[in-house]
């Protein structure tokens, strides 16, 4: 292999690719749009949730006249907005016209005064978050009211609260800060970055293989003194360069803003990566780029046309989607995920990435991912060079 010839081939591929508006568009516009869309969407959603929670809940009471002191407290409470009792209670709850309906039984006050048991019924729709929240809030409100009733009874009997509250309970959340703060980011970032590394060079891989076949430029290179190995290396390096360029743009447009100003984007988006973790990820991503670029070249050179090549590369998407489906499991079992999954190509990088962002540094997993991805890279490179040597592949009619 002559490095000069590979360089000329690479130079030509890059010049050709970078003059293509489609390549430039996907390379520059998408990485800019991607973070805007992802973070914009999550900010919007979070904002909407907060707004929904902050909104007062609509509440209707059946039997207002039965519980006057309770109703006075309720009117004074800002959390609830009292609305008239609807005719169709169930329908109103389901459509969200009313979030909670409270039924105060006849003789409620008398029962309280006589110290006989009575019951308040709260109707809500658990499938509606707002209704569920309102019901929970109303339970707290009722418990406060219950406390005032109990206090009066205790006072009447000359008893103190300690009699019915022998101890108090203190809850203290000891989850690592990194884990909580990095949760949202560990869902979005690995998928975004890994997809970018896997798909970043896809267009050019298709263009310089199946595209060259379709435009019939491949034959002119095959009759030149460039060997098949030089040809495949030139093409591989071109794809790899574009992928790297994409990765840099991605890091600059997503990771840096997140690292610099995490609180601007929202909770759960703190980047918990130290220099070692960052180095590990970059190394693994480089290997992943080698693997996917080589595999894409091998697959796409088999295709007769760009269209056919696009069909062949579509299964790559599955590998990036599956880990996202498994994400909830990863957050639950964390480092106890079976070691086998760290051998699964592409997915293993996403799992490792998630692990790093959740503040776990498991060198055994790092070792498996680095070794397996390196191994797959070598296999894919050999496969690509073998494909380029085959007449039946290059001239498949």
């Amino acid at each position, binding site marked *: 292999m002559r490095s*000069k*010839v590979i360089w*000329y*081939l690479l130079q*030509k591929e890059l*010049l*050709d690719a970078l*003059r*293509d508006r489609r390549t430039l568009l996907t390379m520059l516009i998408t990485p800019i749009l991607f973070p805007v869309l992802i973070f914009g969407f999550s900010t919007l959603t979070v904002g909407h949730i907060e707004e929904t929670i902050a909104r007062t809940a609509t509440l209707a009471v059946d039997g207002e006249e039965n519980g006057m002191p309770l109703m006075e407290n309720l009117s004074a409470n800002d959390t609830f907005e009292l609305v008239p009792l609807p005719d169709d209670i169930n329908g109103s709850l389901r459509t969200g016209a009313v979030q909670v309906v409270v039924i105060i039984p006849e003789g409620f006050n008398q029962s309280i005064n006589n110290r006989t048991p009575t019951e308040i019924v709260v109707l809500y729709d658990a499938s509606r978050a707002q209704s569920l929240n309102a019901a929970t809030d109303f339970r707290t409100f009722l418990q406060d009211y219950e406390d005032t009733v109990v206090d009066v009874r205790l006072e009447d009997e000359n008893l103190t609260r300690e009699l019915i509250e022998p101890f108090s309970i203190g809850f203290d959340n000891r989850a690592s800060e990194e884990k909580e703060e990095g949760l949202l980011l560990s869902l979005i970032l690995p998928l975004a970055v890994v997809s970018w590394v896997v798909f970043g060079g896809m267009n050019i891989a298709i263009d310089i293989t199946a595209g*060259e076949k379709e*435009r*019939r*430029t*491949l*034959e*002119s*290179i*095959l*009759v*030149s*003194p*460039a*060997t098949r190995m030089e040809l495949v290396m030139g093409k591989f390096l071109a794809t790899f360069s574009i992928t790297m360029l994409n990765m840099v743009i991605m890091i600059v447009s997503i990771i840096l803003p997140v690292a610099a100003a995490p609180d601007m984007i929202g909770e759960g988006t703190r980047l918990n990566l130290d220099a070692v973790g960052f180095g590990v990820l970059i190394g693994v991503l480089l290997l992943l780029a080698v693997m996917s670029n080589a595999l894409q070249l091998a697959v796409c050179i088999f295709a007769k046309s760009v269209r056919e090549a696009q069909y062949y590369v579509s299964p790559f998407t599955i590998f990036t989607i599956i880990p996202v489906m498994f994400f909830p499991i990863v957050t639950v079992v964390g480092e106890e995920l079976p070691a086998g999954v760290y051998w699964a190509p592409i997915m293993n990088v996403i799992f490792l990435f998630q692990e790093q962002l959740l503040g776990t540094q498991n060198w055994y997993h790092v070792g498996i991912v680095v070794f397996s991805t390196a191994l797959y890279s070598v296999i894919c490179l050999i496969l690509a060079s073998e494909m380029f040597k085959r*007449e*039946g592949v290059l*001239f498949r*009619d």
Partner: protein
Amino acid sequence: MVPKVSEEIDNIRNAVEAVGLKKRFGKFTAVTDVTFSVPSGCVFGLLGPNGAGKTTTLRMLSTVYKPTEGTARIMGRDIVKDPDGVRHSIGVVGESPGLYDRLTARETVRFYGRLYGMDDRAIARRTEKIFGDLGMEEYADRRTEKLSKGMKQKVIIARAMIHDPPVLILDEPTSGLDVVGSRTVMDFIKDVGRRDKTVLLSTHVTSIAQELCDGVAIINKGRIMAGGTMKGLLKKHGNLEDFMFGIIGRRDK
């Protein structure tokens, strides 16, 4: 010029020597027992209908296909044993050759020149000469996607000629060109032929073969059916077209 050559290969006098070339694609045999020779400095044509095996033969000679059997020598170099050596000796204009749309004519030629190991100064000198000969200066720095079919064909010829190869292989060089384009290419082939270059071309048009070639081999259904010098054939048969159809049969007409 005799299509059937002796076994001893005098590779200096014969620029191209094909001996028993055979190419099979799976169960389909595209060409078989193709044997012919082309002396240095001659324009030689493979004449035959579409699907006769012309392109397959030329692709084997230009080292794109590996022969299933047989071999050939180009300027004394074996296409099977020394394909890299052969590639330095040939310039190829394929049947439906593509150009990199986003490269200019000059960039295209420079790229191929570099692959042949030429330095940039030599490429520049040679480019100037070829572009001058073919009248390409005006659009030398225009992207090839903006060029007309005729202009593109000239870029392809310039690309094949950049390293000044002793043997030029052209597959249906005038196919798809208009009258002006065809004339330019034919004049170019004649000119190259006069300059001691060996030209091996394929065509299905007898008039082109008659005008350009010093010798022809008529190929049909993957086999060489007949051949000889153009002068000899015309003297003996009068008309090349009648002769060809006489060989390949009216049904193939």
